[in-house]
């Protein structure tokens, strides 16, 4: 969208609005706040436990067999971040995923990790 047309809903607006139908209108989850780089992994849920899930929940469980960041999940299942966060909250409620939050702001990586990062980038 151009810089000045955000006030208008055009033919692009349908898909922009519709995703929240998947969350039954919820824009926030009551419990969890999923950081962009929180790492999500699905747990070994039985098909029975997964019975009540929607296809979008299933899609998230599918891609998180390999642990993935919230941003990557949003990209892979092609849903906006806000929607993904609500769906992740549902999955967490049912203990179908685990969450590893990123380091808190006050606890950034230490010297050893940073040196590892420098070496890692150098070796790319």
């Amino acid at each position, binding site marked *: 969208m151009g810089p000045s047309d*955000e006030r208008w*809903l055009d033919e692009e607006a349908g898909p922009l609005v519709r995703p929240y139908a998947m969350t039954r209108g919820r824009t926030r989850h009551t419990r969890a706040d999923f950081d962009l780089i929180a790492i999500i992994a699905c747990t070994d849920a039985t098909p029975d436990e997964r019975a009540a899930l929607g296809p979008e929940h299933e899609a998230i469980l599918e891609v998180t067999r390999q642990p993935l960041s919230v941003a990557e999940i949003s990209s892979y299942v092609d849903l906006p*971040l806000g929607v993904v966060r609500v769906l992740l909250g549902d999955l967490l409620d049912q203990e179908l995923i685990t969450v590893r939050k990123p380091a808190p702001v006050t606890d950034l*990586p230490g010297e050893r990790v940073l040196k590892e990062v420098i070496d890692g*980038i*150098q070796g790319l």
Partner: protein
Amino acid sequence: MVSKVSNPSDPHGGPPLAIKILIAGGFGVGKTTLVGAVSEIRPLRTEEMLTQESVGVDDMVGVEQKTTTTVAMDFGRITIRDGLVLYLFGTPGQDRFWYMWDELATGALGAVVLADTRRLDACFPSVDYFERRNLPFVIGVNCFDGADRYAPEEVSAALDLDAGVPVILGDARKKESGKRVLIALVEHVLDSMLRQRGTDLSMATY
């Protein structure tokens, strides 16, 4: 919560520790190009919808009244090793998305501000933002073909940078340039960290 950041080599094979770096700068300065040059995956795109805070659960009407727009962010990933992953997020190019910047900047290690010497003013907002937030950053000058070349000191003076903020000249399309600017950032973060602990003699092992 990550309980032990200083020891991320998780013996239990848990999910990896993720580090976030922001790639900022004006529209069209080459943020996604830089991300793509160093990322191990093709840059991914995630979107956030911004709506006015009036979405009600039972609200079946009124959708047509709502202001809705999307912010797209491109990002890439570098796996340093098992259990340690770097995410590079391009910031949304337009100033009206400060809302997203706050989320992006929270918990970030630091930022690369890409600059184009032909329109240096385009990176002023990014520089201001990271200075205000006290987030370490470096300037990566994307030397576009045909643009006049300037020395790092000239760029530094033109941007009125604090002494010590590194300025790196390069080409966002080139992997080696991307690596240099990222390494400069992490070294800058490390320097700031060690300076802050300067009085602690136990850190003299550096």
